[in-house]
């Protein structure tokens, strides 16, 4: 133990663990390396990922370094229901996107990004709004994961924060850059098996080392009435509601999810995403229970830092071998997410930026692969620099979250309603972001009619969240019905109440404003879009090159 109450590894031990992890992962990718990669394989593994690999990859990607720390913090802060309110809504992000994913896949069976689909539907401005939000999200995720690696290495060994950041960045890049998404999926499976095995061992080990359920039940007196209540209003409003609002936004805003929707075999999408939902929920809620156990036995987090809870509990009650397992658990989680972010960023640059906007649908596949690999190198360098300087990204996070909320309705409705125009999509997002900023930063005095206006917009936003979720699973009629009931209840209960929760109000305003503007502009539109055009416009880039090669081989006189 060191002065921080953590088990402390020597430089040699931590070096062996890191070399074993990243070296082993790199060796794994040699098994699938090809002499010549094609763009479809590099971006979506040729749309042929099976159920098992797909479910493992989706689960491992969605579990990042913050998942464990935040779930444990939620358990420690909100008590019995805390881990559920963190893990359940994160899991539902995976579940609620798959019905829409099947529609995306039906419209663009050869797609690589959601941006390509929106480009085919609306053109560049709408596509670049979506691609831009994806790029911001993945860059932030990269930075946060590299930061977590630095923090973990510096806490558990004499090595510096910067050393941990650099090792993680170089390690992830080394095994991803050659085979792209194929390497990401293949290594995700191995990383998830390790992650799940460690989870299965660590949770019961902590429980019984602390003294078992009897000691825990005796310690329940340490909980406040709110913490002991499974239906705690405090937990619902402060932890559950903000996450619930973000369910569809995070799923739409993440290329890591849409990439897997396009990569998994179409017939396996449902069971892949349902299995990933269960896997994510079980792991994250389970590890969140360590926070609840810490609260129950009266542990105080070192330096008041909640991120210390899990390493503290593992160090205090288990042999140091378990701390090494915890180290591998976190490194595996952050690496599986970071490699997916690198694949997502490279695919966006390859397909959305180079393929659609620079090469204008006539790309050179070799140049395209080069763009992808250079993107990975630049993104890793950017992630390392941002992480090393420990930049305060709170404002950027707030902005990206709102942008994702603002695009949910226009993106989804564009795939079902043939009258939605490019102008309706673009202006709805612009107006929603402007109104979000007014509400979030209280640029106007939030009293009287002004605050009532935002509460009504937020109520519409709440109705949209519930309505879209129901629409995905049960169709238009049920979606409208659920949305109308939710909207009515929100207007009745939320007006006069939401003004005390302006952060939540602002988030819901982004949904509500984009929905109102998009719907009104669409109703005035005479456009009728033929959805079959998307299939023609979103194709395989390797086929384009193959067709050209074949064309050049035909003698000139034979051409008609």
């Amino acid at each position, binding site marked *: 133990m060191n002065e921080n109450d953590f088990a402390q590894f020597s430089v040699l031990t931590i070096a062996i663990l890191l070399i074993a992890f990243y070296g082993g992962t790199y060796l794994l990718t040699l098994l699938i390396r090809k002499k010549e990669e094609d763009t479809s394989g590099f971006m979506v593994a040729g749309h042929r990922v099976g159920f098992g*690999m797909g479910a493992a990859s989706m689960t491992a990607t969605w579990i990042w370094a913050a998942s464990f720390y935040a779930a444990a913090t939620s358990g420690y802060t909100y008590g019995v229901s805390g881990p559920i309110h963190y893990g359940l809504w994160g899991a539902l992000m995976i579940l609620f996107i798959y019905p829409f994913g099947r529609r995306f896949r039906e419209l663009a069976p050869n797609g690589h990004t959601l941006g390509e689909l929106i480009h085919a539907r609306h053109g560049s401005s709408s596509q670049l709004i979506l691609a831009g939000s994806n790029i911001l999200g993945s860059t932030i995720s990269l930075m946060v994961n590299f930061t977590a690696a630095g923090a973990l290495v510096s806490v558990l060994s004499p090595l510096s924060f910067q050393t941990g950041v650099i090792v993680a960045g170089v390690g992830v890049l080394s095994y991803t850059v050659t085979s792209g998404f194929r390497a990401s999926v293949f290594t995700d499976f191995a990383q998830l098996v390790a992650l799940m*095995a460690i989870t299965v061992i660590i949770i019961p080990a902590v429980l019984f080392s602390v003294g078992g359920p009897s000691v825990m039940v005796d310690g329940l007196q340490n909980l406040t009435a709110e913490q002991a209540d499974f239906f705690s209003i405090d937990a619902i409003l402060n932890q559950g509601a903000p996450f619930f609002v973000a369910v569809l936004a995070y799923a739409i805003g993440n290329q890591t999810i849409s990439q897997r929707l396009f990569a998994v075999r179409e017939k396996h999408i449902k069971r892949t995403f349902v299995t990933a939902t269960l896997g994510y929920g079980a*792991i994250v809620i389970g590890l969140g229970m360590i926070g609840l156990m810490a609260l129950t036995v009266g542990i105080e987090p070192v330096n008041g830092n909640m991120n210390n809870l899990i390493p503290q509990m593992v160090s205090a009650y288990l042999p140091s071998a378990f701390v090494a397992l915890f180290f591998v658990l976190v490194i595996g989680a952050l690496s599986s997410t970071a490699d997916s972010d690198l694949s997502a960023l490279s695919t966006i640059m390859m397909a959305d930026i180079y393929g659609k906007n620079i090469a204008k649908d006539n790309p050179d596949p070799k140049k395209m692969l080069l763009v992808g690999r250079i993107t990975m190198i630049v993104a890793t360098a950017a992630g390392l620099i941002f992480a090393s300087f420990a930049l305060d990204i709170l404002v950027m996070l707030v902005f990206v979250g709102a942008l994702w909320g603002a695009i949910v309705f226009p993106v989804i409705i564009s795939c079902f309603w043939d009258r939605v125009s490019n102008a309706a999509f673009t202006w709805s997002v612009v107006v929603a972001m402007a109104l979000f900023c007014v509400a979030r930063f209280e640029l106007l005095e939030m009293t009287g009619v002004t605050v009532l206006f935002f509460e009504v917009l937020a109520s519409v936003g709440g109705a949209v969240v519930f309505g879209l979720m129901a629409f995905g699973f049960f169709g238009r009629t049920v979606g409208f019905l659920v949305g109308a009931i939710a909207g009515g209840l929100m207007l009745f209960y939320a007006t006069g109440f939401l003004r005390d929760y302006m952060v939540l109000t602002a988030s819901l305003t982004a949904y509500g404003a984009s929905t109102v503007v998009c719907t009104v502009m669409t109703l005035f539109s005479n456009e009728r879009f033929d959805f079959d055009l998307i299939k023609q416009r979103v194709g395989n880039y390797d086929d384009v090159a193959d067709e050209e090669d074949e064309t050049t081989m035909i003698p000139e006189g034979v051409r008609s």
Partner: protein
Amino acid sequence: MSEMVYGAYILVWPTLTLGVLAVICGAVIKDAVQARNSDTDMV
């Protein structure tokens, strides 16, 4: 909350994790055998 309920509330999650792990590994093994028989790549 009784000991049994508390213990079950904590241990149901690693149990579910183990179940999902078994399903995923089973599916991957099945895919690997199919890929080998048809001489194709898994990813």
